[in-house]
């Protein structure tokens, strides 16, 4: 025991990043970065929610004069862009970047400085968007920015430029997160964590990351093309010079559809973690679950045309997309059945987390079923771009991503902060959200069939849409109340919550094997995994570990990809200001490019200086003797 204390002390010293502003700006610890990532994403969630509230306020009554079209179009564009680019994807990655290293038993992510850069890029992108919005320069061409409406002729001014550059920022951040997660999962798993022992949450994060790698380049390329059309007179989307408006739609949805699965797949991983813990049973059909996630990811790339059924495309081709869209229901179904089988075999504990899990089933399946409906071309031609679709994807995204996320928050908050959230407030949080969600979005199905298109800032009284819209707006108030309860719960629990202990829920995965909140180095020793549920499989309450990693430096253990056999040791980079500087210069060049192409040149040169410092080797004595020339 004395020996362990000594090691702990040494690790504390070598992993300590200090305190104060400088330490905050230079941190490269995955937990510090993920925590601010999560907090930032929640701030954007609230901002996006406020925008949603304004939309509902405007639409509550016909011919409402509260918000004019100019502001309304900015608001709904901001709402969509915020929720997709600044909340949903970042928050999922952030939770992954926090938990994955803990769950696989490593000390940090593979490229800590790059990770920090990802956060700063994301932050700057979001801040850029909101500064512009507050100066009445918020994008107003929709989160999908269809050309030619978003092009130079029909959207003069800087509004859409801001949008296109915000995309560049956030997509760089998302790609960085994906690279981190894939490399970390491939190379840094605890010894013994072979492929068939990886927790389902980690599988989900891994698969999501691969989807990001192949889907996001499409939006990076297309938003750059849009920016060039707007700023330097290229003609990618200009039909008068051989460009094509539909090219944008193909590229956008080649990213945009996988994006939905990029958001939902991590949530499915969270569900597996929570269901396992709160039924105290292993997930039924682990191999089927993994294969389902993988096939969902593959099929997710074959569906983009189902956003374009109303455009002129060959009909046979369209039918194939119908079939693919229907087919993707199958792997999702497999997962749902396996979870129900798990619940059936176990003894559920109705914690707030588990309530949100049940909420997921009740809501997401509605969204899934209406999703199959709009996979049908004839049906979609009526439902497309109406409130039916708005209802559909809010059931999918709130039911399929936000509910699991709230559940996950109640589940992992104790690990992140060391304190439990109040269960009583949690139940209020759940029931208000559940009721509010249904009151807000269920009527929208009917509104859509009654002919109400999306993205309208007003409607005539004689259309007969007033009552259902009012109902929907009342639902939005209930959701606001729920989120307020949640924020209050976090505020109070952070101060007065019950101390959590290492493993308050009796979870089975490795993040519960260390203290709450975890120390900077995560686990005292690198654990050795002997089964799929390491903490349930422990013999005599003893966690098998390996020893021998250096404690005076940020040393980590690398293992083989398939069987996680220990291979070699390596060093994690420590705190540095360089990622922030690179984000400032690189990001600055992206912003200045909106006004002059020289921004790119100047920014590149400044960034280059930073990169030289970044890559320039720093040798500390006694580690690895410098080579003689």
């Amino acid at each position: 025991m004395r020996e362990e204390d000594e090691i702990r002390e040494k690790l504390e010293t070598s992993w300590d990043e200090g305190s104060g502003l400088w330490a905050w700006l230079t941190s490269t610890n995955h937990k510090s970065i993920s925590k601010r990532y999560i907090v930032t994403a929640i701030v954007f969630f609230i901002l996006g929610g406020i925008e949603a509230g304004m939309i509902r306020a405007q639409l509550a009554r016909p011919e409402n004069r509260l918000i004019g079209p100019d502001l309304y179009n900015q608001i709904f564009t901001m709402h969509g862009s915020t929720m997709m680019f600044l909340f949903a994807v970042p928050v999922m990655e952030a939770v992954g970047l926090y938990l994955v290293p803990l769950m696989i038993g490593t000390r940090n992510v593979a490229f800590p400085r790059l990770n920090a850069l990802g956060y700063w890029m994301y932050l700057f992108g979001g801040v850029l968007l909101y500064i512009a919005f507050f100066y009445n320069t918020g994008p107003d061409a929709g989160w999908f920015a269809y050309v030619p409406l978003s092009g130079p002729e029909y959207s003069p001014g800087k509004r859409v430029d801001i949008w296109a550059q915000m995309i560049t920022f956030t997509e760089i951040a998302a790609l960085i997160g994906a690279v981190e997660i894939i490399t970390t999962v491939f190379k840094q798993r605890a010894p013994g964590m072979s492929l068939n022992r990886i927790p389902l949450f980690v599988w989900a994060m891994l698969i999501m990351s691969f989807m990001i790698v192949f889907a996001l380049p499409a939006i990076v390329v297309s938003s750059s093309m849009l920016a060039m059309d707007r700023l330097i007179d290229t003609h990618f989307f200009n039909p008068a010079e051989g460009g094509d408006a539909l090219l944008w739609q193909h590229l956008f949805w080649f990213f945009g559809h996988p994006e939905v699965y990029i958001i939902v797949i991590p949530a499915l991983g969270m569900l597996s973690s929570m269901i396992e813990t709160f039924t105290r049973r292993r997930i039924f059909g682990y191999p089927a679950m993994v294969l389902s996630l993988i096939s969902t990811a593959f099929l997710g790339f074959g569906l983009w045309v189902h956003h374009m059924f109303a455009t002129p495309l060959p009909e046979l081709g369209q039918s194939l997309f119908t079939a693919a869209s229907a087919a993707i229901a199958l792997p999702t179904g497999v997962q749902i059945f396996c979870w129900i089988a798990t619940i059936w075999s176990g003894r559920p504990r109705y914690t707030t987390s588990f309530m949100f899990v049940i909420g997921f089933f009740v809501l997401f399946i509605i969204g899934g079923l209406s999703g199959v409906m709009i996979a049908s071309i004839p049906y979609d031609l009526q439902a497309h771009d109406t409130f039916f679709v708005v209802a559909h994807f809010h059931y999918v995204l709130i039911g399929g991503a936000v509910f699991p996320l709230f559940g996950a928050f109640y589940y992992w908050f104790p690990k992140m902060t060391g304190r439990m959230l109040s269960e009583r407030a949690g139940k209020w949080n759940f029931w208000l959200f559940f009721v509010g969600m249904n009151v807000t979005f269920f009527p929208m199905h009917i509104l859509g069939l009654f002919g109400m298109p999306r993205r309208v800032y007003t409607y005539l009284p004689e259309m007969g849409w007033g009552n259902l819209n009012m109902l929907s707006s009342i639902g939005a108030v209930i959701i606001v109340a729920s989120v307020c309860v949640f924020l209050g719960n976090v505020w109070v629990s952070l101060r007065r919550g019950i101390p959590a202990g290492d493993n308050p829920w009796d979870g089975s995965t490795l993040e519960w094997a260390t203290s709450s909140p975890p120390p900077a180095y995560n686990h005292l020793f690198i654990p050795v995994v002997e089964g799929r549920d390491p903490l349930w499989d422990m013999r005599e309450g003893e966690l098998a570990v390996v020893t021998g990693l250096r404690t005076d430096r940020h040393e980590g253990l690398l293992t083989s990809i398939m069987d996680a056999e220990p291979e070699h040791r390596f060093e994690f980079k420590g705190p540095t200001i360089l990622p922030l500087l690179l984000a400032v210069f690189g990001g600055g060049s992206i912003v200045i490019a909106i006004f002059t192409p020289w921004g790119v040149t100047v920014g590149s040169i400044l960034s280059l200086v930073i990169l030289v410092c970044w890559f320039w080797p720093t040798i500390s004595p006694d580690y690895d003797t410098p080579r003689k020339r």
Partner: protein
Amino acid sequence: MKHRPVGDVSTLPDHAFSHHAPIWWGNLLMIFIEGTAFAILAASYFYIRRNFDAWPPSGTLLPDLGVSSINLLVIVISAAPFWCAARLARAEASVATIGLWLTLGVLFGVVAIVLRGFEFAALHTRYDSNAYGSITWTILAVHLAHLLAGTLETFLIALVMFVGPVEKKHYTDATVMAVYWYFIVISWVALYLIVFIAPRFI
């Protein structure tokens, strides 16, 4: 939590090559991302093709094969010094020799970059002429950005080999650099075929 030590890793090596090294994976994923971007540019090229009766658009000359073919040759041959550098790094040979091969790679890179300037002229169109000009210029420019980044990065690693403090892990960096350069070479072969050869057939 009680711990039960089952192994000691202190004797494991502190660097590794190829897929054993995280940086190799980071590099490979970067290649996936950029390769996808190139594939999307290529798809856009053929998509835009459908909007024109003639390709290149009538009034525009076919892109010249002279300077572009010379540059293709330069870029393909440039893989050789990287291959030599990577092989020596793998054998953990003298860092100065590796540095020399990398410097040769940098020289090839510089030549390719200069020739790229003439390749733009060989297209006989401008980025703001029409969609054909936009997509061909963009393909060349995006690949040029890779050439620039790759050449600078190689220069930096060569510099480390000559003057910087060198760790064993810099051997890994040299091999990974070579992999990235192969990607630059291979992607250019494909893009050359699309931009300079395909217009003669489609």
